[in-house]
């Protein structure tokens, strides 16, 4: 039982990361109408941006949720960097293209390579870590529930929840949010209604990439940082987006939660005797994705927006 609780706790942390990644991917999918293969590398970009920023702000005093204040400042820097790069990429690369969604998909692979090449050339391929000392599991949870959860895990979950709640408020309570939902739903109708969809699309890139960057930063914080982390997780993020239903932000959140949980629950299969080790966690996610596509091509929340 404690074992299952532990898996669920791990799942919550991993889900937080996947959710942050899948929201951006889903936004771009619905607005720009293509599967953005550079999204994973946008996550990596944010993680490295925060890494550099942490070198500057790391000394800042005070801690929040067990992490130095400078870390959260660096997180914001990483998010801003990813947003700027994504907007520049949109203006320089995607916008001038006269091609279909497949052409854009293939182009985004090229963009992903360029991002990764720059990171590799600058930082090398070695594993890096944010210079934050790791603390052990929180004693209370360990004693009462026998579940090992670190302060760092809690910080990731809480930060992700704050970001997601912020996005929810933006989408539901602001004029900009209404315009974004209208554009996502039907770009042509939104345009003839007088919404300047060009600007809304730029905002989508900013929001989507910033959230992706946050996901990347937390991923790097959760494990470690190297130029491939984002790409390695991209398919799991795609699985979440497809499971939730492409184009639905709330579906992406739900899909992210489910895929993240299933990813971390994979060891259960081993516990009940199936010869499937942890290494197959991503594989399980892909297989679920294909199965969902077959049964419900529009995803489990396909018609929500």
């Amino acid at each position, binding site marked *: 039982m404690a074992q299952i609780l532990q898996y669920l706790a791990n799942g919550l942390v991993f889900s937080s990361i996947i959710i942050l990644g899948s929201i951006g991917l889903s936004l771009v999918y619905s607005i720009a109408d*293509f*599967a953005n293969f550079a999204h994973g590398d946008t996550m990596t970009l944010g993680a490295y941006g925060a890494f550099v920023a942490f070198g500057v702000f790391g000394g800042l005093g005070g801690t929040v949720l067990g992490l130095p204040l400078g870390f959260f400042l660096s997180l914001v820097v990483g998010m801003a960097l990813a947003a700027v790069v994504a907007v520049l990429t949109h203006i320089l*690369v995607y916008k*001038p*293209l006269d*091609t279909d*969604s*497949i*052409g854009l*998909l*293939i*182009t985004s*692979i*090229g*963009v*992903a*390579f*360029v991002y*990764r*090449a*720059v990171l*590799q*050339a600058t930082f090398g*391929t070695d594993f890096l870590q944010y210079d934050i000392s790791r603390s052990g599991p929180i004693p209370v949870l360990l004693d009462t529930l026998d579940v090992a959860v670190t302060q760092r895990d809690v910080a990731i979950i809480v930060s992700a929840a704050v970001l997601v709640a912020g996005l929810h408020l933006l989408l539901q309570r602001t004029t900009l949010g209404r315009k974004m939902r209208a554009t996502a739903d039907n770009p042509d109708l939104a345009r003839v209604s007088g919404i300047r969809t060009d600007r809304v699309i730029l905002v989508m890139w900013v929001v989507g990439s910033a959230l992706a960057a946050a996901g990347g930063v937390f991923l790097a914080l959760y494990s470690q940082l190297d130029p491939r982390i984002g*790409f390695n997780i991209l*398919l799991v993020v*795609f*699985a979440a987006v*497809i499971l939730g239903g492409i184009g639905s932000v709330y579906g992406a959140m739900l899909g992210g939660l489910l895929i993240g949980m299933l990813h971390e629950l994979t060891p259960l299969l081993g516990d009940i005797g199936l010869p499937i*080790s942890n*290494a*197959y966690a*991503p*594989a399980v*996610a*892909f*297989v679920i*994705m*294909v199965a969902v*596509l*077959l049964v419900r*091509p529009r995803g489990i929340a396909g018609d929500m927006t």
Partner: protein
Amino acid sequence: MSALDVGTYSPREKGVVGLLGALGAFLLVAVLTGFLAPAYLLYLIGLSAMYMLLSMGLNVQWGYGGMINFSVAAFFGLGAYGTALLTASGSPISGGVSPVIALFGGLGLAAVLAVIIGYPTLKLRDDYLAIASLGLAEVVRIFILNESQWTAGSAGLTGIPLFFSDWPVLGDLTYPYIFYAGGTPVFNMSQSVVTSALNVVLVTVIVAAVYLFLRRIHQSPWGRVLRTIRTDEDLAETLGKNTFAFKMQAFVIGSLIMALAGVFYSHLVLFVSPSDLQPITTFYVWVAVILGGTGSDRGAMLGGFTIVAIQQGTRFMTDTGLLPIGAAPLRLMLVGLLIIFIVRLRPEGILPPERELIWPDSLGGGRDE
């Protein structure tokens, strides 16, 4: 292919031929001046030909049938692993099987996988097919990486014999292989050159056979249906064609050609590991196909050649020590920029299918099909 071939080469095509000729001449001079080892040049030719095979295989799926297959690396890997597991001395399963028989082991694995991947995914929308096939290819890679009792895991397979190792004459050549003229040795060929030359002969035969086969089926009624499906699947359906069956056939044929490339690769490099199945291999082949010209087999050949040029050229460029960037990121950067610029500037590729799409019978008429 008769009348139109005469004098109808476009300036661009002549340019491409000229460029390739110049590069060939340069390489030849490099070999003659001792700058480049002959065995290495032959190895490069073999590698280019292998990428040509992969590109032609993808071309059947994407160029003819419009299927976005992102699992090229998996089919390539199964071909390579299939033959390696059967022939290699380091194989955890069997080993010692003749490469000529093991060849079919690799092809068989790929055919089975093609049906397993194709059956659920070929009905999907284009971009879903891309994501799903990439995901399933990763499942294959994760399997090979982790089931080390069958696949030797991350260590990879060593001890793979040369393709002709158990052939009566070719396997028994003694080295160095010296040609005599009147009692004096005039030409001394080392083992590496002979085996590399044999590999080039082998791959040339395979490429030629595949090219002729593809040209034949592309012009057949089967190929025409497939092209109709790519253009307008609903139309093909309305005309009473079982489009799923056609797509599946094209998918399997393409996958078998990719596996053939994998088999050749195994016996060329004599080592396979799960890293050969990384998605980057798939993307290299995609670059080759869209660069060369989607649907064009000549383009696929040019693309395959370009990929090897980028792979090996970056190594030379960084060896000079003049660049502030390592070989791996430079390669990634070049491939990335290449993708972006092709889609932006020349989405139809450098050698798009032109004459290939005109039936010989209709040459007397206009340029419409």
